[in-house]
């Protein structure tokens, strides 16, 4: 991988050329990455992938008009073409009074070391990486005689270097690594199969869960789904396990993001400072946690990341904004700009619904008749109204105990009503991914089945 200084130099040259072509301002992101993955199925190597990628993305302004372009071809000829195309595009787009770079004096002056790169992460040979996947799958298949098949296990790692520069002369970068191990085993009983999965992901390889532990968890999850049935349509308390609860938090963040708001396409419109959830609910986004998967030293516009309380004791305390959506809404950026292939958007960093004091067992024990959700499928969330209807699988709760598995049902409600109806929050928060939540108990939802 090329070193950071020469990459920053390349990017600065590109921005200079944009200036020479008539751009009044410009910024750019350059990403270099290397990726490896190996999957194993039934003990045999299935697919091994190697890759190197690079991508330069550029945003140019012609006064208050802007355009974006990107390329994976960093040859001189290609870069010149990209600059020319972006500046030409900017000329045909209309003026937008809210367009523009952040104020130069707002940009980070130094890049904090968040330990996002594992210095020892690259030591394993491919054979050893394959072995990790093999161990995870073997542990899953050895758990129980009903573990009969597998979609495989996968080890992956990724190293990336990011450089951000602006035409004001800012140029900073950082490097990251990430590692993951996952397994998707299949259990069967009476000729009916159930698949589930488990995974671990981390910035430092030593923080990955042990392969055997991942395999055993995956097997346990698949086994508990065997002989699942449908239930009668009913309205009951619903408990979301930490993984499914995290998806609710993602929906809240999506509705709180600047672009959804200025488009008036959010159920959180006009709710800033107002109660949107039960008082026990606090949701925090923190991009500064060392070694965490969602951390980054600065956002996609060079602004320092921090700790943002999105929802504090049930009140919506802020929106999540980049410079553009902030100006558009008459607010200031919350430093949540993200660069993707097609320009600048908004994304969260490490997003967490903070834990409560109940154990998950106590939450389950508090429910006489209800549904414990372990999987959600489909896209039935309307971000404009908060209307919610998704496919679900899990376990039925009877008299405070998890009983038989349930499938082919839906859970439905409205996100605002669901957030207000959070009656219990588990103490089981683990920062194992970018968005996390503890177990959540929602007082009432409609479960549709027979």
């Amino acid at each position, binding site marked *: 991988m090329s070193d950071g200084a020469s990459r920053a130099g390349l990017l600065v040259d590109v921005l200079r050329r944009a200036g020479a072509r008539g751009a009044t301002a410009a910024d750019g992101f350059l990403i270099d990455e290397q990726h490896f993955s190996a999957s194993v199925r039934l003990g045999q190597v299935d697919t*091994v992938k*190697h890759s190197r990628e690079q991508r330069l993305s550029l945003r140019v302004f012609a006064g208050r008009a802007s*355009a974006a372009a990107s*390329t994976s071809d960093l040859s001189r000829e290609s870069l010149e073409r990209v600059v020319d195309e972006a500046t030409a595009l900017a000329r045909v*787009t209309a003026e937008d009074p809210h367009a523009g770079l952040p104020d130069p004096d707002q940009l980070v002056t130094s890049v904090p070391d968040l330990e996002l790169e594992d210095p020892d992460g690259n030591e394993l040979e*491919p054979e050893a990486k394959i072995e990790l996947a093999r161990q995870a799958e073997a542990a899953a298949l050895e758990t129980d005689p009903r573990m009969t098949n597998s979609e495989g296990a996968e080890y992956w790692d990724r190293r990336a270097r990011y450089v951000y520069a602006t035409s004001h002369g800012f140029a900073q970068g950082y490097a990251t690594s990430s590692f993951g191990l996952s397994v998707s085993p299949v259990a069967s009983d009476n000729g009916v199969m159930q698949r589930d999965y488990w995974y671990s992901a981390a910035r430092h390889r030593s923080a990955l869960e042990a392969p055997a532990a991942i395999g055993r968890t995956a097997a346990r999850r698949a086994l508990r789904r065997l002989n699942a049935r449908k239930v009668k349509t009913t309205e009951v308390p619903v408990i979301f396990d930490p993984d499914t609860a995290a998806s609710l938090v993602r929906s809240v963040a999506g509705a709180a993001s600047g672009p959804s708001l200025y488009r008036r396409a959010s159920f959180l419109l006009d709710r800033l400072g107002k109660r949107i959830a039960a008082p026990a609910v606090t949701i925090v986004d923190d991009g500064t946690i060392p070694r965490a998967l969602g951390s980054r030293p600065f956002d996609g516009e060079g602004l320092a990341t921090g700790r943002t309380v999105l929802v504090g004791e049930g009140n919506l305390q802020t929106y999540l904004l980049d410079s553009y959506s902030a100006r558009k809404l008459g607010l200031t950026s919350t430093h949540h700009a993200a660069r993707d292939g097609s320009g600048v958007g908004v994304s969260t960093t490490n997003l967490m619904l903070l834990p409560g004091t109940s154990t998950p067992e106590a939450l389950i024990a508090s429910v006489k008749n209800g549904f414990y959700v372990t999987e959600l499928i489909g*896209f039935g969330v*309307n971000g404009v*109204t908060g209307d919610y209807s998704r496919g679900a699988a899990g376990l039925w709760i009877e008299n405070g105990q998890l009983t038989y598995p349930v499938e082919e049902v839906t859970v439905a409600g409205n996100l605002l009503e669901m957030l207000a109806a959070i009656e219990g929050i588990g103490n089981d928060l683990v920062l194992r991914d970018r968005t996390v939540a503890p177990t959540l108990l929602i007082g009432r939802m*409609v479960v549709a089945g027979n």
Partner: protein
Amino acid sequence: MNDLVRTQPERFFADRFNVTPGLMERLLGGSLVGRVDDADIYLEYRVNEELVLEENVVKKASRHVSQGAGVRAQADTRTGYAHTDEISLGNLEEAARQARAIADRAGTSGTLAVAGRGRPHDLYTLVEPPIVTALERKLDLLRRVDTAARAADPRVKQVIASLSTEEVVVLLATASGWTVGDVRPLTRLNVTVIAEDNGKREIGSWGGGGRVPFDFFLEEERWTRFAAEAARQAILKLRAVEAPAGTMTVVLGPGWPGILLHEAIGHGLEGDFNRKGVSAFAGRLGQKVASELVTVVDDGTIPNRRGSLNVDDEGTPTGRTVLIENGVLTGYMQDRLNARLMKMAPTGNGRRESYAHPPMPRMTNTFMLAGQDDPEEIIRSVPNGLYAVVFGGGQVDITSGKFVFSASEAYLIEDGRVTAPVKGATLIGNGPDALTRVSRVGHDLKLDEGVGTCGKDGQSVPVGVGLPTIRIDGMTVGGTQV
């Protein structure tokens, strides 16, 4: 890119990167033959343009170029895949070395798979591909769409009109000496509308496209219809009532509700899941899996459709695969790897998102053939139920067979009549038995407008679906009205 290059991917990659079919064959021959069962090199050059108009202002104008090569070597069930975004001899050699490393692990059959040598189709040669159409014309269309959507109703408060256009040039060489190229245009116009009334807000969207020229949107006033439809959806939802919850008779309208097929049976009939025995349909060829009224095909050969391809991403010409014939499971969709391992023929369904991904069995355009029934009569045959005509996305659990798809426009059926619109609701069913409950099939087969994108294992590819009006006796509707 000039016109000559458009029709000649070989020349394009030779001129731009000095990579010729001869060189690709030498790379595969020199490094891979004798130690693998199959190998190929895939070169890709992609230009993508995104134009977004919001509040009648161009909010996004972007152009992205990506290029790269993927080298694959396969031995038995193993696949080695390496890709690079710098197409150069050195990088290709390195990628071939990495891909081969996996194949070297164990003995192989020593015979190379023979790729299909059928002629590629010619489904989307365009006089003016949409990527070259002048920006001014495109922006002008988006402005007119915005105006039309706002004019549709005073309650329309926001309009987002977008046009995505791409052109992908591919060149593929297999170890068996087969070289084939393709130039793939694709465009899509989308309209999203936010309507507000008395503090209530709703969203509606509509769109379409395909492997078609820009003028496709102007023909038959398509753009006006897209704008009007998006506005109508949003306005309609403002007065939608709670959707019912529970199991009931469901009538699906024609066209895009064909996503039912994509989720309920399509993924479950992809070769990889069946070869591995993890699909709910594994081992069920020849068995009855649907009502005898049901015949479902996957057809990648329909001219200008979003899901169509002249050849798949392994060089196999696409085909028309009958998946279910009169209720009986008759075929799987195959790429070369899974076809070889299952001793079946490749069906032209080996697809990949880009050079950065190895191919997998994927759908193209999946639809149910028309039946005999009058659509109006199908609705009249239902005493009480749900009539669903527009859907958002869907998802399936291949192994358990449980699938969902979410209705965004649906109505109650009461006493055989379509009545109140209901709020969006997810429908859930079980793939192997959902189609056994199909009791009526209309004569009104329609393909969707050309907006579908399918995701599998992190890879997205454009697809199409289609359906006549059908009646399903007993599906679970995930509303809130108990």
